């Protein structure tokens, strides 16, 4: 594997939390590399540190020790504008509980990342193309008819697809999904996984956290996390 193929690396990553008087070690010297266009699933028992790792990889959290690199960016060292640019343009997040803004409709939720990266004047110019892109994503995900609905008017699967469309709005290089099917029934969950797999087949790099081995089976590579370290790495069956 050449260095050019690697999009994301984590080296010797440590993370711990204070829980009352106790210090709980979550990640202990974890190493990980993700190739461009790869679909990696991280599995593990509840409390094994999967979500913490995903947040660190997406720069939503920082490691206590160790280095996380995304292309040329050292995520442990970037701050301010660069950090916001990374979160806005380089990475797309899909959460277990969708996390859509209730005040905005489906379309507005989807093009929100494009709005965030534009100034007020810039948005006037960009608005048309952003709206077009948002509509394309919604149509692709079967939500074209739901564009003007509010999140609370949607089913769980529709909300998750909206969240997925929002994550893809700015064409991120990396898609991070935290238990994307965890809150859905199996049929709806399968639909979401189909979409994610399809995106991966089209070249999208995906890192997904799940506790479900069957869901993880959709990935090209499965990493098992236990006691803060990667215990097994194997391709999906």
């Amino acid at each position, binding site marked *: 594997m050449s260095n050019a193929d690697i999009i994301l690396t984590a080296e010797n990553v440590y993370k711990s939390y204070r829980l009352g008087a106790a210090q709980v070690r979550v990640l202990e010297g974890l190493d990980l590399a993700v190739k461009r266009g790869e679909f990696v699933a991280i599995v593990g028992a*509840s409390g094994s540190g999967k979500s913490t790792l995903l947040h660190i990889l997406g720069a939503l959290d920082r490691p206590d020790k160790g280095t996380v690199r995304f292309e040329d960016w050292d995520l442990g060292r970037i701050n301010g504008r660069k950090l916001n640019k990374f979160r806005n343009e380089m990475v797309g997040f899909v959460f277990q509980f969708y996390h859509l803004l209730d005040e905005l409709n489906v379309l507005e939720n989807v093009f929100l990342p494009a709005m965030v990266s534009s100034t007020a004047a810039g948005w006037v110019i960009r608005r048309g193309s952003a709206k077009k892109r948002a509509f394309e994503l919604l149509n692709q995900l079967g939500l074209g008819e739901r564009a003007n609905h509010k999140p609370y008017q949607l089913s769980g699967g529709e909300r998750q697809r909206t969240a997925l469309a929002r994550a893809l709005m700015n064409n991120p290089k990396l898609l991070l999904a935290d238990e994307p099917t965890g809150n859905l029934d199996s049929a709806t969950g399968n639909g979401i996984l189909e979409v994610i797999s399809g995106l991966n087949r089209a070249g999208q790099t995906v890192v997904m956290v799940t506790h479900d081995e069957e869901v993880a089976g959709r990935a090209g590579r499965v990493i098992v996390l236990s006691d803060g370290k990667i215990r097994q790495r194997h391709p999906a069956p």
Partner: protein
Amino acid sequence: MYKFILAFRYMFRKRISYLALLAVSLCVFIVVVVMTVMTGLVDDFKRKNHEFVGDCVVATESLVGFGQYEDFVKILEGCDFVQAVSAVIRSYGLVSPGGSGQCVGVEIMGIDPVRHSQVTGFGKMLHYRSGQVSKAFEPVYDPNLPGCIAAVDLKLPRDARGGYVYGAGPDREGLAVSCFPLTAKGALARAGAGEVNTKTFYCSDYARSGLARIDDSLIYLPFEQAQMLCGMGQQPKRVSMLLVKFRQGVKPENGSRKVSRLWADYAAQIKAEKKSVPQLENVTVQNWKQYRRAYIAAMEKEQTMMIVMFALVAVTTVFIVFVVFYMIISHKSKDIGILKSIGVSNVDLIGLFSCFAFIMASVSCCVGVFLGWLFLVKINGIEDWLFEHFRFQLWDRSIYAIDAIPNTVDFKVLSGIVLSGICVCLAGALAASRRAMKARPVDSLQVSQL
């Protein structure tokens, strides 16, 4: 752009926002009403004091008065910044309404009604002779009788609401006015020394200055008569004060400074001529505010107290706004996490909540100002209604001497209130936004999992 959209949606689609809006609106409403009424009362009181004495007062506190005033009046009348001058006798006396057996202490002012009305608002204070100031001392029932003008509270009864009950004309009643004539050296003039100290006058009109302490104890007499009664008619003739009205555009402070210099030169000249002029060294020149400061200062202190109290209200408002915003922002912690996860910066988050605060403040101020304006427009009607149904009056007219509760909204006061309201909301939002700034996205999303 998303900041404006989200701020608008937060504002109009959340019940808690409407509660915050109501809280801020009520605060603005209260401040608008109280500031307008209190400022109106103070301004009205100042205006009445100004109208009572003119722009500048050349006076001595001594009841003896001061001499050589005629030449100084001529000097003043020759100045381009002076519009008119009125010489005034001011003293104290006793009044016995004819046949009543009563005897009350009064303040006496001897004036030339025409000159006095050119300097002060005297003409407007009269009830029957308002348009005929030259005939102010001529009783309508017999113009040949010696007339006097009684302050309204001395003669007229009030109705239940504190208004005056005027008849078709003043009462045909003689008032025996007794004074204490003083010699130029300040001694009480002895009987038989050529001084007359009691004379009967007939009420020709009632004067109402709107100043409670004036309106319950003052009697205007014709200048020469008062001068004689107070012992100031003997040569060299004396007066108690000269009231000066400046031409339009001359500030009382500036004009009074010029008059003061003129008086100093005049007094020095008299001294150099070694003329014997009583009380000349005790004469002071003051603008109307300085002359009436004992009364105005009390009102201004009330106003200062009110401002201090409102500063406390403002602090409470800031705290309420802060709590409301803190609650709203706490309620929005999930949104903060979502926004941060898609690359919204801390500065933009502050911008979002400041925008929200600005919209809320603007809407609240508009609502508060509108409600305040509406209340002020109706305040006198409300007071009438309260009086009719509950016999309740907000201000006792015998103390405050106002016809109606002041309700003219001052644009400057209004802008100050609106600006303060917006600043208070922004301050509350900024303080609460610090919480949003410090929040880590993972904590805000409550997805930190072990």
